[in-house]
Each structure stands twice: as C-alpha cells, then as structure tokens.
C-alpha cells in the first residue's frame, strides 16, 4: 500500500516536472448517471462532429466527465471521446502526442505552468469569445488570470480543490467539551491543548513523511500572515525566502510544530505519510483528533474504509484565520485547453464554462469533484460536505490562490527529499526558522524555471 503511494508520489513528481496534469488524488468508489438541468450552453448544431479529450481520470471521475460529454452531445450533437492517459502519466502521454504532431483536440491540465509552457510553444488555441465570456461570467477573475498567457486566455477551469480545510473527529471534540471548531489560530492552539488535556495523545496529526503536506501547511499560514500580494510574489520567487514575511509565517507555524504536547514528537510526524496521518485521526481508538489537508481527506477516509463517516464523525473547519486575516483559500484545479481547430472544440470549451456542465460534474456520485463555478448551489452537490467545500471556493472569490509549490519548478516545489519539501521537513524536525529560510532560499535559487 505504502509502496503504491510512493510510486504514485514519484509518478506525480514526474508529472509535475513536465508541468502538465497531475491529479494525485486517491481513486473513488462507485459512479453513476447525472441529472442535467437548465441550459445556458450555446446552441450550435454540430451533429456528426467528433473530438478527442485526454485526461488523467479513471473510475468515478471518468464517469463524471463522461456525463459532461453526454450533456454536450445532447445539446449540440457532437461526440467527444475521452481517453485516460495510459499508465496515469498524462504529462508524458500528452507531451509525446503534442511533439509527435497528433495532439488531442482537448486536454485537461492540472498546472498553470503547463498552460503557459504549451501556449508559449504555440501549441494551444486561445479561447473563442463564447468560452472566454463564459469563464468571465461564471468564475472569479483569478481563474481567468491563471489561464492567461501573453494576453490570451487559454484554459477553462473544470474542477477545483480546496486545500484550506482542517478535518477533525467530532467525538474527541465533544468529549473534550469543545463545542465550536476554532476560527482563529490562537483558538486552534487552545483547542489542541484542551484535546491534549482530554487525553488525546497527539491532538494534531501531521503527515510530515510526505513533504507536500508541509508545503500546504506553510502556504495556508503564509497567505494569512503575509497577504495575497506577498503570496503572489513568493510564488514566483520575486521576493526571497529570507524575507521577513516568511520569518513571520514560519514562526507562527512553529507555535504548533514545535509543541510536542500538540503534535507528538516531530520525529514521529516525519515518519508518518499523508494517508497514515488521516488513518491516525479517524481509525478506531485513534490517538489524534485533527488532521490538516485538502478536500481529498474525505476521499481518503472513504477510500481507506475508515470507521468515521464523513459529515457526521469527520467534519472540517476552514483553516483558522491568523491575527484577524481575511478569508483566503489555497487550492488547485484542472483546466481544459484546446489544441486543435476542430469545429467542436470551442463550443465544447464554452459548454464546460457553463453552469450546466459544472452541475453535471459535481452532482456525479463518488467523484469528489468540486467546482469554482459561481452558479452552483450547495444542493447541486452529491453530498453536503462537498457542497460546503465547494461553496467556500466560490465565496472566497478572488482571494483564491493556486497552490504555491505546484507553481514552483518541480525541482523546488514538487520533489521528495529535495527543495521545499525537504527543507520544511527539516524545519518540522528542528524548528530552526533562520536555518530553514536560508536553505529554502538557497534551493529556490538553484532551481531553474521560475
């Protein structure tokens, strides 16, 4: 099990390196059909036309996407054929196809860096006016910006993930008499202390064995202590990692990470990979009560067949605000881009931007898809927890930020035992802020491709 996870991590790292789609999420259970309702999609007659879509999804996610293709066929008559990349390695498959001159008509990309890479190589078709208008009308402008390269918009946001969520087991909270989940960082630390007093041995479970969980911790604290402008600058390494804002974020993080009563021994946290950190929180007679990570914690709970039920035994609260910071959200998402001038491509991309397509994907059972589409109601989602997760992405609007490490060169932000992953692991181990900053800056400087 752990081996497959590591293999997966390696695969993801490899995928990140090419800078294309890497949906490193766990697989989901069953799937099913989808209700399609209303229609704001453009009415074009494309009957008999066909096009191809390359993606990474299989299983329930593939079924959800198929529902979108079916909806499009019903609306226009064009048949889209979805192919999941062989071996789950979309970056390589797509790269080979594009370089070989036979790109798919449409591909799903998980990294803004991949959009810019293909756009700069003149391999992408800019969005037509319908699709562009659809994205502008249905999504916060930050999503358009993420898909804009050199003044042209290339991608339509498809799904989104919410990585600003802290998950907790409700029972230990009730036992400890904590009625309201913490809303501020100070409350968060206090609740953790209360849990510790109430006999929860490792109140906050940290999956420090996987470096990426630590980058997500850092990003969520940083976006709150430093603000959006600094977040954007650090994302593109326009300010050094030795900046005072980084000091502040790491010092804040240290209040938790260096407190053995709250997180157990850091050495143990460093031995715990992400899936184990979720297991330790939600298994029977768990020693932890809180685990931080994105919306995919829910799919890990169901995928690992843990006894906790998402929504009742396992709930989440938004990442706590630090020093009165405004709501901000770190997340990810996939973008659909068009590679060819196939007549069905632009209408399809426009369709993807519509509320109808968004409803089809989030209503599909088991996929765990969320969407940043503004026209969705919580009730459009397959379950209430997903609805809540999705609502947060929409309500945060332009304060949404794409995962920082996913936008850094893979060598720095996406490689086990290297760069940011390793430096934050070292920091978790020794709590030395200055040394961490120095190492982060040195490794950021050494990485190519900012």
């Amino acid at each position, binding site marked *: 099990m752990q081996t497959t996870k590591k293999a997966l991590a*390696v695969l993801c790292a490899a995928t990140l390196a090419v800078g294309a789609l890497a949906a490193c999420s766990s697989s989901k259970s069953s799937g099913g059909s989808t209700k399609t309702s209303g229609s704001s999609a453009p009415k074009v007659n494309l009957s008999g036309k066909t096009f191809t879509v390359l993606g990474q999804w299989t299983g329930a996610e593939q079924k959800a996407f198929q529902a979108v293709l079916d909806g499009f066929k019903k609306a226009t008559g064009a048949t889209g054929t979805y192919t999941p990349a062989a071996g789950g390695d979309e970056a390589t498959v797509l790269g080979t196809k594009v370089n070989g001159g036979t790109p798919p008509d449409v591909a799903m990309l998980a990294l803004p860096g991949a959009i810019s*890479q293909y756009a700069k190589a003149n391999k992408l078709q800019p969005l037509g006016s319908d699709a562009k208008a659809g994205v502008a009308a249905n999504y916060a402008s930050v999503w358009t910006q993420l898909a804009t390269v050199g003044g042209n918009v290339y991608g339509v946001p498809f799904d989104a993930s919410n990585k600003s969520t802290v998950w907790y087991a409700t029972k230990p909270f009730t036992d400890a008499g904590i009625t309201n989940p913490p809303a501020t960082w100070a409350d968060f630390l206090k609740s953790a202390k209360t849990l510790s007093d109430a*006999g929860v041995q490792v109140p906050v479970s940290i999956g420090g064995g996987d470096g990426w969980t630590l980058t997500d911790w850092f990003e969520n604290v940083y976006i709150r202590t430093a603000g959006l402008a600094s977040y954007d600058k650090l994302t593109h390494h326009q300010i050094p990692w030795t900046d005072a804002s980084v000091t502040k974020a790491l010092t804040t993080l240290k209040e938790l990470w260096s407190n053995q009563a709250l997180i157990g021994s850091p050495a143990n946290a*460093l031995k715990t990979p992400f899936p184990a950190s979720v297991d330790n929180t939600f298994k029977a007679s768990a020693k932890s009560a809180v685990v931080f990570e994105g919306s995919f914690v829910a799919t890990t709970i169901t995928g690992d067949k843990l006894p906790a039920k998402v929504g009742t035994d396992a709930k989440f609260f938004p990442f706590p605000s630090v020093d009165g910071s405004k709501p901000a959200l770190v997340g990810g998402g996939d973008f659909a881009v068009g590679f060819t001038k196939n007549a069905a491509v632009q209408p399809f991309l426009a369709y993807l931007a519509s509320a109808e397509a968004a409803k089809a994907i989030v209503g599909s059972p088991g996929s765990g898809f969320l969407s940043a589409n503004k026209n969705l109601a919580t009730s459009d989602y397959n379950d209430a927890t997903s609805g809540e997760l999705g609502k947060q992405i929409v309500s945060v609007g332009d304060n949404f930020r794409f995962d920082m490490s996913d936008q850094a060169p*893979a060598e720095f932000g996406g*490689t086990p035992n290297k760069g940011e992953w390793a430096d934050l692991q070292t920091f978790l181990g020794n709590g030395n802020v200055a040394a961490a900053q120095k190492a982060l800056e040195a490794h950021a400087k050494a990485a190519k491709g900012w």
Partner: protein
Amino acid sequence: MTQQPGEPIADGPAVGSAVLVADAPTTGSDGRAGKPPRELGQARWLSIIFLGPALILLAVIVLYPLVYSAVRSLFDDGPAGTTGGFVGLRNYGSVFTDPSTFRAVKNNIIWILVAPTVITIVGLIFAVLSERIRWSSAFKLVLFMPMAISFLASGVTFELIYSDQPSRGLANAVTVGIRDTFSSPSLYPETHIRTGGSFTGSASSGYTTTKAYSPGTPVLIPMVGLSLTSPPKGLVSAQPPSTGPGLNGVVWNDFRRGGGGTVGKVDPGELGLKGVHVQALQDGKVVASTTADAKGDFSFPGLTSATYQVKLPASNFAPPFNGLSWLGPNLITPSIMIAYLWVYAGFAMVLLAAGMAAIPRDALEAARIDGATEWQVFRRVTAPLLAPVLLVVFVTLVINVLKIFDIVFVISSGAGANGKYADVLATQLFNAYGQQRYGIASAIGVVLVLVVVPFMALNIRRFRREQR
C-alpha cells in the same frame, strides 16, 4: 559452396564463438594462406549469421543506451526533461557534492564493505553446519527458500516487521516484550500535570508542589491527559481527601468527559488515579512515601509535625518503551541489510555447500588421522580448497550489492522522511530519472558501471581460467 552435411554445421557455432572470443584479433582480416582459409571463413560467416540477431539486440538495447547515457551525462538538464548545454563532468561533480547523492555514495560503500563479507561468512557457517546435521537437505531448503521470494515481497514483509508500532511490527513486538518482562511499564505514561497549578518539574523529572503543606491542609494534585474514551480499567471517581490524621491529599484526572467542571477542583465524574506513587518531602528529602488508593486518595498519617512538599516521582509517568526505531535515520541501512542477508544467506550457503562436497574426502581424513583438530582441518584444508568458490560467492555478492535497488526502495518507502537515509545510488538514479533530471541520472548510471566493471572483469577472467 555446397556444405558437407553434418560436420561444419555441428562445428560452426562452437568454432565460431571460440574464434570470436579468443582468436579473432590475431587471425582476423588477413586471410593468410597456410591455414584452411575457406573453412575458417565459412565458419565465421556462419557464426555471424547465428550470432547476428543476438548481437543486434545487444547493440540496440545494451550498447546504444550505454553509449547514449555516457554522452547524456555530459549535458545539463533543460526544463521539462529537455537536454541542456554541454557541461563536461559537472554532473559527475554533483554526484559527489550534492548531499543526497553523496549520502547514497556513502551508503553504497557501507553496503559493499559489510554485506558481501557478512553474507559469505554466514553462508559458510551454514554450509559447514549443514554438513554435520541430520535433515541437512531440509535445512538447506528452508534457508534457500527466501531466494524464491521476490525482493518486492521480502521488502514489504520486512517493512512490516520493522514497523514502529509494537502492535504491528514483529521486531518491536519482540523487543518490547522482552523489555517489559524485565521492567513493568509505568502506570500513567500519558498523563501530565494540569497547567496553571503551583507545581514544578515535568513528566520526566516528576512533579513537586511549590508550596509546603501542613498536616490538615488537603493536597490537591490535578493531572490531565488520561484517555476519556478508554481509561485504564479499575478507576473510580475521585473523592475530596479524607480528613484523617497527618498529611492527606488526592491525585486525580482533572478532566471529565464532555468538559465542564472547575479546574483544580475534584468534580463528580473525574477519575482518581489509583496506584500513583506519592512522596512527602521535608527540606527536599523524602521522608515518607505511599501510593494512592482507588479513589486517588493518599495519606501520610505519620506526618504531623512540620510542613511538607509533595512529589509525584517520574516513575509514574515514564513513557512506555516502544521499541527501537528500526527504520529511523541510524538503523535503517543495517535493518535493510538484515533483510538482504535473509534473502542471500541461502544462496551463499548452497554454493559453498556444493563447493565443500567437491573437496576430496581423503584430504580431510588424512588431516584428521594426522591429529589435526576440526578447526585446523577447516583452516588448513577446507578453507584453501574452498577459496575459489568463496571468491565466486563474494564477487557475485559484490556485484549484486552494487546495483542493489528494489529491497532498499520498498523498505525505505515505508519510512516516511527517514527513507532518504537509506538511499543508495540506484534509488537516486531512479529518483533523478523520475524527476527528468536525465543528466544526473546518466552520470550516476555511468559511475555504477565504472564501479562494477572491475568486479565483472575479475569474474570473467576467473571463468576463463576455469574453462581452460
């Protein structure tokens, strides 16, 4: 050009290969008269036909990648796996300067120095032993069996054996079991003093009241951290201390399920900590000690005259022994070596046992008749006669250890952030390749080839010598 049926065809490949391997350079292209040129030419022609497909395959899948890797190792890595500019030997420099690859180099050296020697010695011991016991075939079979299991499977097995949690890993289940038979674990390892009270010390030094109590004043010692969902069996609700003669007090878990209650006060539903050792101190010296009763009450009826501090010694809270961190930074490589030994000891034993069976009995008998002890027989007769086989086993192991990958990869992937401490060159190569850092990956590959080549040459030379 009609062929003689039978002879040339039967001879062809054998002659051909001999020519190719040994004599080709000397009798090569000249086609001098004197020898039967036609026969030889025909044989060579035939041999080329027979060897051709294999040679082409070798060239395509071995020679070309080898040469290409060597060339690629001299170039930098561009973005997204593209080839960058020529950098000379800089990638090789990185292999030895980058901390992570250099750690792999060091680990590889440790592996080569330790593993083949240990495995050969253990194999030898088993081989000698197997000669002297009944059911030796069964013994050999059992020891050889791990060779039939893939490294992946043995890796997963050992990853479980080394698991940190004593409830899951065999290695720690045994160490914890042994340790706990000799010293019983403490009563309340998970509890700590409620913050805000007037106590000094920590769980590892014991807690002492800052205040000195006079008899008649109840000593309240609020602890927290006891599991509320599954508290130790036999605990009952705490009661405020009795008011008998002497110094009285209560030690209890100041937290009840669902919260509520007053901090520092014994509330209904809060459990007494039965069996806690309590000491009374006068001027820092222990004057009396007792243990708390079922309700958490303790009393020192004899202490009536002075004021006393109360101490809960650290032995109450000693953290349980959770075994060794087999996959921690220090033990991970030795742990993997043990797994490797488990796999390869049987291999060494079988080869050495075969070698020993070939040693002429009369030499051994003669030595024994001459009055040699068994140890002398082993050292002076068996070992020298076995030397060639020992060398084969050793060199084979060196080569296998140099390219060691799968077992390290599998076991270290279960070690979280500590996995990197087990890295060897081959896992670094794999990682670099996965990250599309092909320049470094190629350089590591070339380094590995360069290190293996001398051992290969040694082995090949030995084989040739034997064939003569």
